[in-house]
């Protein structure tokens, strides 16, 4: 039985790119900052990265269990909420998710433009830039799920081909002794760092919306896990690189550690490689924003049969208006708000529906039996 035309769905392996793009955000440029004292665990932050990754792995497994226990035609975020929370509360939760995805997109959008302003063009007029990015988002999302997956693929590829090889040039300058002494922080500091760092991973909830568009979705679980592993690895690499490159004192005053140490690379024809990284990162940010917006458009379609192309235009208009009238200080507030909402949604909502689904009827199995 085929649920969806191959023209609209993607093969299980593509879950890797989708998850990877959601997990590795713009935070990779400054996550080291969040691990600084007084509350952070500084050079022991790698423990927090591993713990956070394991936690997300557990939550992803929960999501897969929940999804597997749904009727295969209704295995999506929208239907799950409608099923378990009733029509009224279900719709409400769905709208929270829609707004949450849009907010996430906006936060990345804003942060990225801020990075461009900081690193590339301090005096640039930003609204043409935002319009450019918004039109790219429109082009990506209007192409449907396959074009989103494509941009995720290119984003992942570029991240690896552009950024990882550059670390080779950093290695002569690193001082492993910066990591010592190990385990010299107290438990509350570890807890704080883990909590702060796990904010990088909260977009993993996108899986619930993406799931129905994957062929043989149950097979994709492996790829989602690999994506979590790969992103944890990327964060670990950057963590170690920056903590070994900078001393703690330097890190405290370095706002964008990743970009700062990449700035040291000098090739015979080029230097200041962070210019390229910031520019190419557009592809990654574009992908991350597009998935979120696609998910909200699609959820709106499932709930109220709103035409996604119209809804997309409305969202982008909101983006533009919000961006034009934003306060300089709002970036950090929005970011905080987004992180804390995400915390609730990921760490409370996912286990909640996991437990409910375990208690409730397993519709996934009966469906499978009915087929055979």
């Amino acid at each position: 039985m085929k649920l969806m035309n191959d023209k609209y769905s993607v093969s299980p392996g593509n879950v890797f790119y989708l998850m990877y793009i959601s997990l590795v955000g713009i935070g990779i440029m400054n996550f080291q900052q969040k691990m600084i004292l007084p509350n952070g665990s500084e050079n022991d932050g790698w423990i927090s990265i591993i713990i956070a990754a394991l936690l997300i792995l557990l939550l992803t497994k929960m999501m897969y269990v929940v999804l597997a226990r749904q009727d295969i035609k209704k295995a999506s975020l929208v239907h799950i909420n409608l099923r378990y929370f009733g029509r009224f509360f279900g719709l409400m939760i769905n709208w929270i998710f829609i707004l949450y995805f849009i907010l996430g997109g906006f936060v990345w959008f804003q942060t990225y433009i801020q990075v461009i302003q900081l690193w590339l063009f301090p005096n640039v007029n930003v609204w043409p830039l935002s319009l450019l990015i918004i039109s790219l988002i429109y082009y990506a999302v209007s192409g449907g799920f396959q074009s989103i997956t494509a941009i995720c693929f290119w984003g992942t590829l570029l991240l690896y081909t552009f950024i990882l090889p550059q670390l080779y040039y950093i290695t002569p300058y690193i001082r492993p002794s910066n990591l010592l002494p190990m385990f010299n922080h107290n438990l509350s500091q570890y807890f704080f760092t883990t909590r702060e760092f796990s904010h990088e991973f909260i977009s993993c909830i996108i899986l619930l919306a993406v799931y129905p568009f994957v062929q043989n979705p149950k097979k994709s679980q492996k790829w989602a896990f690999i994506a979590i592993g790969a992103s944890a690895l990327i964060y670990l690499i950057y963590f170690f690189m920056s903590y070994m490159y900078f001393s703690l004192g330097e890190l405290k005053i370095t706002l964008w550690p990743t970009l700062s140490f990449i700035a040291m690379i000098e090739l015979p024809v080029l230097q200041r490689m962070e210019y390229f990284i910031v520019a190419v990162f557009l592809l990654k940010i574009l992908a991350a924003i597009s998935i979120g917006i696609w998910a909200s458009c699609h959820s709106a379609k499932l709930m109220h049969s709103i035409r996604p192309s119209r809804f997309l235009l409305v969202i982008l208009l909101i983006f533009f208006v919000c961006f034009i009238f934003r306060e300089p200080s709002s970036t950090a507030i929005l970011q905080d708000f987004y992180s804390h909402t995400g915390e609730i949604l990921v760490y409370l909502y996912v286990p909640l529906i996991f437990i409910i689904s375990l208690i409730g009827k397993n519709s996934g199995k009966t469906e499978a039996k009915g087929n055979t």
Partner: protein
Amino acid sequence: MSTSPSMPNDSISTFDQFIDLCSRSNDFVTANLNINSSCTFIAHYLKTLVDQSHLEQLIHSLQNPHDAHEIKSLDQLKQYNPFEGSFVTNDLDKIESSVFGGFLLIQEEHKSDAFLLIPITGKQGLRTDNDTDVEFSVVGPKIGFIEDIDTNVHLVRMQLRTPRLIVRELTVGTISKTKVVMMYLDGIANPDNVSMMEARIREIEFDIILDTTQLDELITDNHNTPFPLFTTSERRDRVVFALISGQIAVSTDGSPYFITGPSTLFDFFLSPEDYYLPWVLGSFFRVIRITGVVFSLFASALYVALLTHHYEVIPKELLGRLIYSRQNVPFPPVLEALVLEATVEFLREAGARLPSRIGQTLGIVGGVILGQAAVDAALTSNILIIVVSLSALTSFVTPIYKMSNAIRFIRFPMIILAAMWGLFGIAVGLSFLLLHLSRLESLGSPYTVPFFPLRAKDLNDRFIRAPFSLTSNRPGYLRPPFLKRYETPKKQRKKSKIDEEGYV
């Protein structure tokens, strides 16, 4: 009859009207054909369309005394004439298209209810030398196609000696009634692709098909893209290779080009020559080609971006050279680059329209003198001349001309984006390009396959030309019903010499 929307309606309802209309042209001949005493035939034909020697042959054979007195009707005439494909009809539509296709029209005197049509089409004026002028290769066959479709099909059939090679003839064009030929290997090309291609050709509403490339645009998946979605080729080996991989080839009468599809982006970077060289060299040339294209896309844009916005990216030794070379140039880098790039385009366009002998002169005047003078007059910098001419050069490394056009076109928006937003502008261009490529489809299958959607098994013959031991399967993205191309010999473990050597 003849109610084609593209022509005024002549409203021919009788045969006599048709003859009257035709007689307005002086090359329309009406003659009596006396074969024997018992009956007289009247022949009509366009003398400019028929082959005189065929006509003589026909008359000669009909005057054979043994047969002559037996011919009393059109049907008997049809039996005795030596040409294949003659038929009797009274359908005016058919008569019109046949007469204007070089058929001889024969009627019995005083009778106009049935007509015999004999094909004696002349093929004078067609090119017969079939060198591959456009897609030249140093190694390998130099057999290309010509403007005659039958010869082209003959050329392909000579290499694919199998009944599985299906040739479908279709007619396209309300006025030109051009014969379109669709070829594929039955059981190897995906049937869905075949039916989709046929449906698209049948749906075409157009008056005159002048070239296969026109057909390309009429059946394409996306009209608003500079990228060619079907491979265009005049080389026989290329078309045969496409057929054997499971693609479909289409050509029209009067065009030396075949289009093959479904194509992918990387098909445009393959050259048949890759397969005639050792795989190491073939791969090397392919990598050169691909890096050349990437260079061509971004070189001028990078120059503009770095010099306009981010001079700090350039190391100080190089920056010194750049400043020295640009110190007298009064223009911003973007103007400098755009003017030079445009000059290259002017040269190419003028060179393409000129006879080759004048073209050489033009190359010297344009390339050498103009470039040198521009630098001496301090209108451009030396380094930009190097960058622009290199990127012009590298844009021509793609074996398919249509693709190199697309690449040269894309450079201009890139340069403008780079001038406005520097490296960020280039990233916007790159993102748009990747998105656009990923959204493209050729005959319904994705354009960027096997990269996205990723198909690891098909990657072996894309960036590099894999050795023949690895290419025994057809590319899977074409969804061929029969995957295996040839058996690879079983690997025998090769012992290294150091293990073997010693006394016998």
